[in-house]
């Protein structure tokens, strides 16, 4: 891990608008957002020699490369699962630091709202891999057919173990929407919610409420990663990848750590945080801003505990009232709004906001942000990045 500490930088990024219906193919969204990210960096399509895509995306590397007129790609491949946003940047940093590539583009484009993806029917019998079968054939026949249901199982146990109450957990979506309300680029600009709205929102799968669950958007994101030497001469303030980490532990399942000793913990997030802080030589107390995986709000307090921002079992009370997780709080959480308050783009926008915090361009800029943390993949294999000025 220390092998590429400081050896790669994010020099450009772009996000498409968040929408309910992009009316564009995912390949077109990919090409447009990559073009915009390269413009942001001040680089040309012909500078790109690496591509990192998501395994679930429809836009293959060769399709993007051919559509955009890229030449001489020397590094490409896929990254999977919910941790991918950070893990894709890790892959790009590895490519750049090892010399396998000089300029790697990470991209993801998903028509998540207009075209249903990851429906329960996809996970019923017939088309599954044997690894899927390990989990699904023991869940779906009992009606546990959705991601939200699997997350709710962890959340129920967390509430039991820690004494966390809905009135506390609700502050995560409330603060995310507050932050998102000041973000003109997000889907919830000018649309904050109050705790009462949260408590009045429907129980989808008890204990998860509608407002605990981020709603899929159509959209795309791309990042440009290159060497520090190249980064210094480009258009934007370069953002150094100080650390990048992935974690999978004994009995990691997809959003369902049911079979491990403690089903209410997120040990992958704990390990990612520990590794990032160790690599960078910092402690949790030195971090002022973090973008955590808020696809499901109640997993945020557990992540705050695992990362060491508060003690185990105190995540929900830490969030209560919102003051500790707002922009000026002890740890500014999901300052663009995150998945709950900016839009659900499979966590890609969390990485974008982590970059903005180092550039100094967030709509909820944390003035003291010298280190910017982002974690994706809570509840399964996890990944994280620690960013700083170059």
């Amino acid at each position, binding site marked *: 891990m220390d092998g590429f500490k400081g050896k790669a930088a994010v020099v450009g990024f772009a996000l498409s608008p968040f929408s309910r219906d992009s009316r564009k193919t995912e390949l077109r969204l990919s090409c447009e957002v990559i073009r915009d990210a390269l413009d942001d960096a001040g680089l040309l399509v012909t500078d790109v020699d690496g591509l990192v895509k998501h395994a679930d995306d429809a836009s293959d590397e060769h399709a993007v490369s051919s559509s955009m007129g890229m030449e001489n790609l020397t590094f490409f491949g896929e990254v999977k699962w919910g941790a991918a946003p950070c893990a894709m940047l890790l892959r790009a940093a590895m490519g750049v630091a090892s010399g396998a590539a000089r300029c790697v583009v990470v991209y993801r484009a998903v028509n998540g709202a207009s075209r249903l993806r990851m429906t329960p029917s996809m996970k019923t019998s017939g088309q599954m891999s044997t690894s899927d079968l*390990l989990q699904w054939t023991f869940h779906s026949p009992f*009606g546990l*057919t959705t991601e939200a249901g699997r997350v709710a199982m962890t959340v129920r146990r967390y509430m039991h173990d820690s004494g966390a109450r809905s009135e506390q957990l609700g502050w995560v979506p409330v603060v995310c929407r507050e932050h998102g309300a000041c973000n003109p680029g997000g889907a919830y600009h000018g649309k904050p919610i109050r705790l009462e709205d949260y408590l009045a929102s429907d129980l989808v*799968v008890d204990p998860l409420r509608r407002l605990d669950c981020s709603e899929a958007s159509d959209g795309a994101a791309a990042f440009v990663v290159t060497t520090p030497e190249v980064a210094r001469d480009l258009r934007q303030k370069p953002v150094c990848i100080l650390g990048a980490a992935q974690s999978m532990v004994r009995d990691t399942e997809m959003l369902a750590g049911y079979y491990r000793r403690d089903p209410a913990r997120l040990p992958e997030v704990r390990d990612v945080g520990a590794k990032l802080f160790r690599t960078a030589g910092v402690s949790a107390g030195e971090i002022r801003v973090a973008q955590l995986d808020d696809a499901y709000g109640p997993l945020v307090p557990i992540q705050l505990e695992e990362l060491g921002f508060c003690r185990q079992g105190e995540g929900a009370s830490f969030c209560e009232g919102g003051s500790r997780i707002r922009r000026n709080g002890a740890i500014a959480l999901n300052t663009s709004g995150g998945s709950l308050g900016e839009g659900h783009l499979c966590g890609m926008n969390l990485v974008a906001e982590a970059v903005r915090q180092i550039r100094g361009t967030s709509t909820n800029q944390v003035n003291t942000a010298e280190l910017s943390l982002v974690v994706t993949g809570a509840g399964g294999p996890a990944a994280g990045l620690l960013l700083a000025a170059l």
Partner: protein
Amino acid sequence: MSVDYDAGHPIPAPTVHPDNQGFWDGVMRQELVIQRCGSCGAWAHPPRPMCPECRSPKREWSRAKGKGTVVSFVTYRQSVHPGFKVPYSVVLVELEEGVRLVSNLQGVKPEEIRIGMPVEAVFERINEEVVLPKFRKVD
């Protein structure tokens, strides 16, 4: 019944394959059979092709006592599959043998389910093809 099913919409059936066949064969006989390592004796669920404790490929099947406790539970209040009428609950049960199973509870209303509740295995025929291992409260 543990879940109110809509017979017009078949529920996702278990997919039986060589790694998990012993479990589902047991269920058809109305026996709760859990995978065990033929070398070190460690129980495993969900079934796996190798023992995570000792790496032995010798997989065996052993009848569990069927006694356990509720470790967690959720209640679907909004329908996500037409075969399952809402509300219905899904429980995570830890068996005395130490492994955990996802299942449903018979005869207990969602608001009466408690973590730590002692339960025992029962078998429920869902349709002509499918039998599922369920649990009921033990007093």
